[in-house]
């Protein structure tokens, strides 16, 4: 069989950030006329890979082949020159300009442009690829779906051959998403290579010719879409099953109830019922974006519940957050440790004080010296490197910053801990340490562990709850092997194994 070389091929690409292997030995091919989906959890390495393709990051190892010829992308311009274009989640458009002006913006040409000529050329292009748009419309008046069309036209106008879409449906209504898919199929028919990044299984199944799944920086599957039997199979691939680590876990007597949610409902969340007791870890698993975020924000006081009841330590939500004490209470270890849990330009001591300031206050004064000593002590006992309380938060590596956040939150002696993707982006050694710390904290607290990594949930949790589209599909003990086998199905939102849905 004679095959033309793929438009772009990655060959053994590896990229590490410090000890974290973001991409490991990745080989993928993108062919003209094919829609290839890249599926993976947050932190699986999708964005790193795309940044390498777009010339914004340099791989540590491996080659990029353009039509079979090795190429090096030293700058973003190199990638643009071979025809790679990206549509980002956040559109890069000038709102005050018209569609035609946006498309011509930055396009090399004569210094003077006639608006009517610009508009005619854009209209002709839009017709050719049947993406209807009014070239004279101001971008600020367009819907999200229309803005996305402008982004696509921008790439086509520059004759890009490889179009990468980073979670393009996140901002679209279902109808707009359907229109986008129609457009993507048309573009593929015109011999473009389409890369579709998503973690929405339905879309990937419906749209793709080929599917590649990334998990922890590796390609765990790369195959024609027809060979994938079901969404469940994809979900399983995404979250992985392989147990990379095992930590000793003794069963605990579950004691006092620390969290009780019943009938929580707010548009995104639907009729959530949940209970958590001191001494147990409840692993909340699911594909990202299925309601974990609003649930966590509600439990942690960032978002009031709209209907239903949330009781923390036996107190009503509003009462609890009105008079909350700094210690013996609720601790939240957020996924976003750099932007939410810490201030990057404050010292570690100040970051310790962020949530524990009431513990170091005497009258109006703050005992800074005492806090600094405490931070030094915590650095030693939690193995934070380097153990210097005067360093700025931004000077710590991701793993050490995470340990700092955990040390701080555990110092508050919480009875309810919400840990969100606590080991995302950490290397194996740091992951193991964080797991041990969580298990130790279980002696005193109930832990809600929100994770997209099934092996983490299985290693730590006493009970597992599965979320899909804002609902908790099922909750069961971690020993229930029958249910565990069906977790993939539950995460895909179906009780029965559905056949793949593909249109022509």
């Amino acid at each position: 069989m004679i095959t033309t070389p793929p438009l772009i091929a990655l060959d053994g690409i590896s990229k590490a950030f410090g000890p974290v292997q973001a991409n490991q030995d990745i080989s993928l091919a993108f062919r003209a006329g094919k829609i290839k989906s890249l599926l993976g959890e947050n932190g699986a390495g999708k964005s790193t890979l795309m940044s390498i393709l777009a010339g914004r990051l340099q791989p540590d190892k491996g080659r990029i082949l353009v039509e079979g010829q090795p190429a090096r992308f030293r700058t973003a311009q190199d990638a643009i020159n071979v025809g790679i274009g990206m549509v980002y989640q956040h559109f890069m458009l000038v709102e005050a300009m018209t569609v035609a002006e946006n498309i011509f913006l930055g396009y090399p040409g004569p210094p003077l442009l006639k608006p009517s000529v610009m508009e005619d050329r854009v209209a002709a292009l839009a017709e050719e690829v049947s993406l209807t748009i009014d070239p004279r419309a101001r971008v600020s008046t367009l819907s999200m779906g229309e803005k996305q069309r402008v982004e696509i036209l921008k790439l086509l106008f520059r004759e890009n051959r490889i179009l990468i879409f980073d979670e393009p449906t996140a901002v679209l209504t279902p109808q707009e998403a359907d229109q986008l898919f129609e457009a993507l199929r048309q573009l593929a028919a015109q011999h473009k290579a389409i890369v579709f990044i998503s973690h929405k299984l339905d879309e990937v199944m419906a749209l793709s010719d080929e599917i590649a799944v990334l998990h922890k920086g590796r390609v765990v599957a790369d195959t024609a879409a027809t060979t994938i039997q079901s969404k469940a199979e994809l979900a399983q691939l995404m979250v992985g099953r392989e147990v990379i680590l095992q930590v000793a876990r003794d069963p605990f007597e579950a004691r006092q109830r620390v969290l009780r949610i019943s009938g929580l409902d707010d548009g995104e969340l639907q009729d959530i019922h949940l209970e958590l007791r001191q001494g147990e870890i409840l692993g909340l698993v699911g594909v990202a974006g299925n309601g974990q975020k609003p649930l966590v924000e509600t439990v942690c006081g960032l978002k009031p519940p709209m209907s239903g009841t949330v009781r923390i330590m036996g107190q009503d939500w509003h009462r609890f957050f009105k008079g909350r004490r700094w210690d013996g209470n609720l601790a939240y270890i957020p996924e976003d440790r750099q932007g939410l849990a810490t201030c990057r330009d404050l010292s570690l001591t100040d970051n310790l004080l962020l949530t524990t300031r009431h513990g170091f206050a005497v009258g109006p004064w703050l005992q800074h010296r005492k806090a600094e000593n405490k931070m030094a002590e915590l650095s030693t006992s939690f193995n934070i490197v380097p153990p210097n309380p005067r360093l700025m938060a931004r000077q710590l590596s991701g793993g050490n910053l995470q340990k700092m956040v955990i040390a701080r939150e555990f110092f508050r002696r919480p009875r309810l801990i919400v840990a969100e993707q606590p080991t995302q982006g950490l290397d194996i050694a740091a992951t193991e340490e964080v797991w041990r710390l969580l298990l130790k904290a279980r002696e005193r607290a109930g832990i809600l562990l929100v994770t997209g990594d099934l092996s983490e949930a299985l290693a730590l949790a006493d009970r597992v709850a599965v979320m899909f589209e804002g609902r908790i599909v099922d909750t069961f003990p971690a020993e229930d092997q029958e249910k565990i086998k069906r977790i993939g199905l539950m995460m895909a939102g179906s009780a029965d194994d559905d056949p793949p849905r593909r249109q022509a």
Partner: protein
Amino acid sequence: MLSIRAYKRQEPLQWRSCLVFLGAVLLSLAISALLLQVHGKPALHGLRILFAGAFGSLWAIEDCLIKAIPIFLCSLGVAIAFRLQVWNIGAEGQFALGAIGATGVALAFPDLPGYGLLPLMAAAAFLLGGLWGLIPALLKLRMQANEIIVTLMMNYIAILILDYLVYGRWKDPQSFGFPMTPEFGPGAIVGKIGSTNLNWGLVVCLVTGVVVWVFFRFTRLGFEFRAAGENIRASRYAGLPYQRLVCLAMVLSGALAGWAGLLEASATINRLQPSIMVGYGYTAIVVAWLARLNPLTIGLASFLLAALRVGVENLQLDLQVPAAFGGIMEGLILLTVLAGGFFMEYGLKLRRTA
């Protein structure tokens, strides 16, 4: 071929940042000299007159200190708001309201002795200045109104209120039609220190400066200001009362500017009149940035910019330079120092490329 490449500094510059600052000020002086030259004035001679005017005599230095008082108080206030990343451009209006509040009390109780009247005037200046700061804070929090626009617009409202009062209700019947209030009674005047020309406002500056410094450095509330200013999301995460902090910052900010207005009316001109508004509130913004919001350096920067005003007055007299020259120099200093901020964050490397 040689090319220059910027790289981000890992370590802060520390003491060498002084050199950057000095370089920026020298550059702005050089540009000012160039402007003088273009204008047909002797440039070096002009700079010499400028310096002599500001530092050449004890009287000149006293004058600098007197002008530094309102600038310092306004700037300290502005810096409190800036710490929280709330952009209060309204010190000018808050200054006017403070002067109005103090004058209202002074005119209402002309016969009270100083120990009774001055605290009342201070309270009134604090309240009205603080209120003028609180309004944009509430509009920002409740209606997402941009505080830069609101505080700026409210400056004009404040000045018009001041004009309305001194042209109308509060106008001195014996002023021959000039827009000014009657002169304050002796109880309403902040006196001079010993035999100098300096008034006790200088001591108010020292005390408030130290209080603000202690507040930011050693109190829990001060820490909450710093943390909330660093990262709004983190402040919500940590349960900081962000909305209350914004209101408090704007009230304090306005109140300090209000006190500056009080001192200017009471100690410097002994009455209220439109010429009290000479743009101290805007200079304060320049000062706050130059001093990087630190209360101690705000003191130094206030003195330097006050000296610039005094020096330019001298330059105007001797070389017939237009009054706007002072504003131009102020702007140049701010621009060069802000541009110099680049070198605090980045270093430059020379590179030989093939």
